[in-house]
């Protein structure tokens, strides 16, 4: 049932003329490596992050490839046990600390938060550049640790193994984590202050794009959580180097203390990784279904809910670690609470599709992939939050599969979606529409084949971090490795067509997807100071139904269903569809 009520909202106005492309933009206003290394332009810093985390993604992916290849045999035929342990640790450390955590905040956040709130830069441009240098310094330690022998503790670094027993480069590794943590804090602080202080006139909290909301929530976690992990790894380093008993019971420490401190950060850290992805998805799903987001306030506040409640459930990683029955009850209960806002988001995204006008370009395909995979990731998390089932599933491949469904199926797909969505804006070039759709499909199929078998062997009890495993699990591991090969191919494709687009891609119009955000009101690529005139926001972020952007101006014709689908084939402004009277519908 739906009731139609007249709305007092904005009506369509003529779209703005296409900005002249000859203007100097942020890419060509100065040249040379030095102009990049000393830049304080948030857009260039975003590109610096993009290049560096892409390298780390390849490094972490190669380590994953080694792990999967080795698991083809049940007796570790390819690698020695020590080499295998180093490979999965390298995969975990690089992917988590040097790819997933900085991915969306560092690349898309740096690039688009100021543009989305109508500012010409971040609140602290120099701190922003410093964050990249600090990140690279931390990453240098991490890479040093991996190249000079590796770390064999797993990314979780549990003592007393890591502090007493491990014969590997734990100290440089934790220094890397320690240092790169500061970069995360700097980025979080910068985004938070920018959102508070730099919004343009009319950009109220209720009109901010949901991407901004989600990064605001992320920044909250980064600011409050990262210092805790910094202290934790520092204590670990002190114990390892100086032999001061903190975590090792043989010298008076408590190993569970480390787990509490570590997960106090590292559980919220998974929300640092996934929340920005949720923001990306909210932007794309509205644009490609030409709809207002269903339940703006629900989606925005659920991000904040996740950020806050996410701090209260760290010990659900420790249900079989020897915590008390009552503590386990409490943390299981709180873990159920955090599942609710995630569920709300999924329902609202689905609701957004309702009566839309949906097209399926690569960003939307990645987003739909996100919705499917993240839903499975979230639902399987319930098995692990439930005490009775976690006993058996803990530390098995079920956990591995769950985590990858959320982090790769969720976060990496959202990141890919965001990169494909904003690539024309960042580079001024369109990539191949066909190849990008092919890549999205291959990645989703490869992902399913990789991780669904892991749920099965995990349910049957195969422990994680096992290069030698009982032969009955081999078929499933071979399937998983086969899927990983397809997944790897899927990741290679964007590397090719995105790179090629820089040289051979068609010039992108200012607003190729006909999106409403302020970032699309600048030329592609943007000028150095983003906006020639201070933008004034007159309405909320997703007025696709009426067809106006946030400044109340009309939108160009969106990419259509037929041959006009390729956004690059449309150039210049299209005539305004004329003022329309549209009614707001209230559903339900």
């Amino acid at each position: 049932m739906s009731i139609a009520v007249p709305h007092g909202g904005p009506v369509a106005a003529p779209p703005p003329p296409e900005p002249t492309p000859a203007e100097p933009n942020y890419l060509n206003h100065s040249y040379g490596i030095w102009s990049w290394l000393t830049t304080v332009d948030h857009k260039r810093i975003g590109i610096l992050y993009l290049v560096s985390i892409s390298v780390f993604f390849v490094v972490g992916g190669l380590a994953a490839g080694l792990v999967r290849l080795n698991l083809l045999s049940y007796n570790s035929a390819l690698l020695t046990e020590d080499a295998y342990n180093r490979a999965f640790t390298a995969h975990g450390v690089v992917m988590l600390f040097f790819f997933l955590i900085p991915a969306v905040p560092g690349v898309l956040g740096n690039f688009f938060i100021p543009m989305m709130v109508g500012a010409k830069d971040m609140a602290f441009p120099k701190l922003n550049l410093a964050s990249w240098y600090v990140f690279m310094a931390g990453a240098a330690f991490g890479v040093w640790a991996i190249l000079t022998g590796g770390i064999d503790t797993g990314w979780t670094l549990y003592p007393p193994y890591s502090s007493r027993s491990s014969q590997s480069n734990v100290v440089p590794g934790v220094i890397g984590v320690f240092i790169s943590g500061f970069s995360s804090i700097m980025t979080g602080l910068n985004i938070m202050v920018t959102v508070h202080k730099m919004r343009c006139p009319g950009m109220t909290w209720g009109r901010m794009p949901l991407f901004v909301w989600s990064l605001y929530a992320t920044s909250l976690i980064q600011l409050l959580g990262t210092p805790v992990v910094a202290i934790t790894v520092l204590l670990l380093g002190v114990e390892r180097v100086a032999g001061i008993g903190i975590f090792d019971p043989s010298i008076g420490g408590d190993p569970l203390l480390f787990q509490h401190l570590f997960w106090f950060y590292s559980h919220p850290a998974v929300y640092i990784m996934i929340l920005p992805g949720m923001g990306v998805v909210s932007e794309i799903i509205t644009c490609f279904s030409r709809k207002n987001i269903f339940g703006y306030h629900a989606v925005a506040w659920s991000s904040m809910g996740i950020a806050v409640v996410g701090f209260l459930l760290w010990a659900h990683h420790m249900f079989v670690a020897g915590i008390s029955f009552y503590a386990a009850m409490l943390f299981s209960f709180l873990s159920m609470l955090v599942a609710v806002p995630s569920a709300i988001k999924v329902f609202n995204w689905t609701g957004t599709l309702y009566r839309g006008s949906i097209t399926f370009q690569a960003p939307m395909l990645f987003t739909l992939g996100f919705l499917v995979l993240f839903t499975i990731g979230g639902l399987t998390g319930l098995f692990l939050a439930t005490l009775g089932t976690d006993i058996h599933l803990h530390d098995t491949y079920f956990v591995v599969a769950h985590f990858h469904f959320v982090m790769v199926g969720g976060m990496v797909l959202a990141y890919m979606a965001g990169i494909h969505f904003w690539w024309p804006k960042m580079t001024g070039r369109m990539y191949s529409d066909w190849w990008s759709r092919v890549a999205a499909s291959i990645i989703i199929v490869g992902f399913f084949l990789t991780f669904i078998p892991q749920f099965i062997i995990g349910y049957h009890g195969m422990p994680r971090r096992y290069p030698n495993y009982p032969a009955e699990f081999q078929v499933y591991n071979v399937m998983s490795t086969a899927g990983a090969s397809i997944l790897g191919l899927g990741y290679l494709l964007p590397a090719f067509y995105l790179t090629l687009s820089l040289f051979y891609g068609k010039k992108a119009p200012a607003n190729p997807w006909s999106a409403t955000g302020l970032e699309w009101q600048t030329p592609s690529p943007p000028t150095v100071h983003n906006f020639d005139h201070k933008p004034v926001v007159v309405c909320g972020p997703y007025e696709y139904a009426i067809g106006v952007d946030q400044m109340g101006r009309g939108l160009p014709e969106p990419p259509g269903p037929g041959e006009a689908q390729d956004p690059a084939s449309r150039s210049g402004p299209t005539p305004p569809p004329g003022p329309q009277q549209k009614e707001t519908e209230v559903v339900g």
Partner: protein
Amino acid sequence: MSWILPVVPVMASTLAERFEALFWYIVLVTTGAAVLVYGAMLYFCIAYRRNESNTQTPRILGSTRLEIAWTILPTIIFFTFFAWGAIVYRFAVHPPRDAEEIFVIGKQWMWKAQYTPREIDGVKYTPRVIIGGNPANMDEVDRRNIGRLVVPINRPVKVTMISEDVIHDFGIPAFRSKMDVLPGRYTTAWYHPTRLGEYHIFCDQYCGTWHSLMVGKVAVVTEDEYARFFTGEGSPQGTNNPADGTPAADGRQLFLKLQCITCHSADSQARAPVLEGLYNRPIPGHPGKVADDEYIRESIEQPLEKVVEGWQPIMPSYAGKVTKEEMRALIMYIRSLKPGMTPKRTEMNVPPVGAPVTPPPQDTGSGGKK
């Protein structure tokens, strides 16, 4: 071995049954939810794809009633998971009072189990088994004792665990049980096995190089076999000798120490009958007589009384040379001997009866003066 795993892994304990009920409840509910969401997505994506007749969209901002509904409904469902999960967990972490206790020690990279002592003929015996691990890191005695954890069926068993070095985890998937094994602190798990058989034991907490070899087996056996494990007569633990710390294991050491092995060996130079599978068998040349306890005792103390047909009467008498307990141990050992279990005559380094099975820690010379 089948290449395809069964839909439901083998369930061998009461906890496994409780786990499966809860697990499939969550599977059912989450699958239902996923099908609803995916169905809606698929329908919307097909029905509302853009075409010439579908370029305009309505301005729908949301629905408070729907938001409330899909906030409260999942919350209620999630709380049913929580509540049922807490009930199963409470069952899993609280062993019953009458559970028999087994101590398990984890170290890089092996599991050792030690059973609660049982008194047999006035002497306390404590069976010990090496459950599994990497043989490359063990000494000769431990290697010989690599076997299985033996638990009785239909009776609760409590496992109290501690680690000698780093954190391990003692997990038995068939029992749906798992518990971290911490250094400097006891943790417990308990099982009520319901199905005979042999199941995996895994170390589930990463513990270093040979983590993946810190695996073993648990054998669920009948009450009768369990009793024979305690005396050492049976070897449900799967080693080629009686479990360490049983009367029969003492007998084995006596068998070597008293040089019985010199003649009663299983090789071609044997000068006396091999004793494998002897117990309760008819004795050649002595119709109507079987090799029972009394016959074995007599044959040790008065060997020339009933010599087996075909062998020379060369065995000296051990009367007065073995105590009553030692005699009992020897009989237990001979009762336990199955084909292929006779030790090699050249077995080196026989430790004295009652000696600890693992050597004392080596003094590395790095300690300070005391």
